[in-house]
């Protein structure tokens, strides 16, 4: 069974800071991702077609995918945003039948262990401290390839929790205030 590993992954980046949006977009593009960057969680939900999801609680994930305008393979979002936070967005995605298997990564400028744990417990794949580095972005492909394999095998059970058993430690090499 061939994995379409060379077809581009589409990442949806969410950040209210336009400088950080520019940075994350550039970082992702240099890693050959296709990127859509938006400035709010509300806009992200629109792109994900989540509004439609509520109307069809009994749907299959296939039916829902037709309603998504664009297929999104990963969401990377800032934690602190006015209105809906990145954490709220993460929860909405994990509560959605059609979207819960999309890997979500959280970014934050603040190293708060309880915040990090809360996000990982809610199902975030990774938590990156800002400013995000190339080495952080390099960690994304494995999550995306894993999702793609899962899709192709049509596994019904979500295996994301496996990732959390590995020890997580924020990047201590950079000086943070």
């Amino acid at each position, binding site marked *: 069974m061939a994995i379409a590993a060379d077809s581009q992954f589409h990442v949806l980046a969410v950040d209210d*800071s*336009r*400088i950080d949006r520019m940075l994350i977009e550039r*970082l992702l*593009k240099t890693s050959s991702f296709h990127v859509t960057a938006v400035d709010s969680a509300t806009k992200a939900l629109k792109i994900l077609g989540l509004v439609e999801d509520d109307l069809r609680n009994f749907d299959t994930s296939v039916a829902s995918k037709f309603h998504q305008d664009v297929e999104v393979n990963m969401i990377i979002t800032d934690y602190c945003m006015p209105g809906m936070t990145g954490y709220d967005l993460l929860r909405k995605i994990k509560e959605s039948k059609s979207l819960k298997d999309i890997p979500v990564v959280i970014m934050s400028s603040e190293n708060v262990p309880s915040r990090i744990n809360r996000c990982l417990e809610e199902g975030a794949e990774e938590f990156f401290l800002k400013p995000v580095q190339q080495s952080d972005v390099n960690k994304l492909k494995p999550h995306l390839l894993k999702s793609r394999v899962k899709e192709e095998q049509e596994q019904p059970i979500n295996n994301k929790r496996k990732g959390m058993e590995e020890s997580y430690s924020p990047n201590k090499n*950079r000086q943070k*205030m």
Partner: protein
Amino acid sequence: MDVIQWQRQHRDHQASMFREGFLDDQFIQLQKLQDETSPDFVIEVITMFFADSENLINNMKQALEQTPVDFRQVDAHVHQYKGSSASVGAARVKNVCVTFRNFCDAQNLEGCARCLQQLQHEYSLLKSNLQHLFGLQQQIQAAGGSIPTIE
């Protein structure tokens, strides 16, 4: 003046900016993201940073002039500025923001006012230093040379 001399000036000026703490490693990360497909990336980001700086500093100033001062509002602006300065490698600006946030938490108006002044000062220094650096860059590129990068 020939290209070699412009390049030396560029290298020296950039090195001194790092030595004096104006810039940190994140600025190098920005330079690494610049290539043929995005040849003006650093200048674009920094230009955006200048605009954000002026906007945010103004917002802080206005927030501190209110009676009574809403320190959470001031802090929100400082938090944003801390984030963007960290993202571009503006180390001295970022450090003032850290101190500034502490004074906001303590609701210390005098401390906040001092930090605002410091921020304006640091931003002004950074801006003129970076503009000098980009000026040298343009001279080099106009003369057909390439920009020396710090390893």
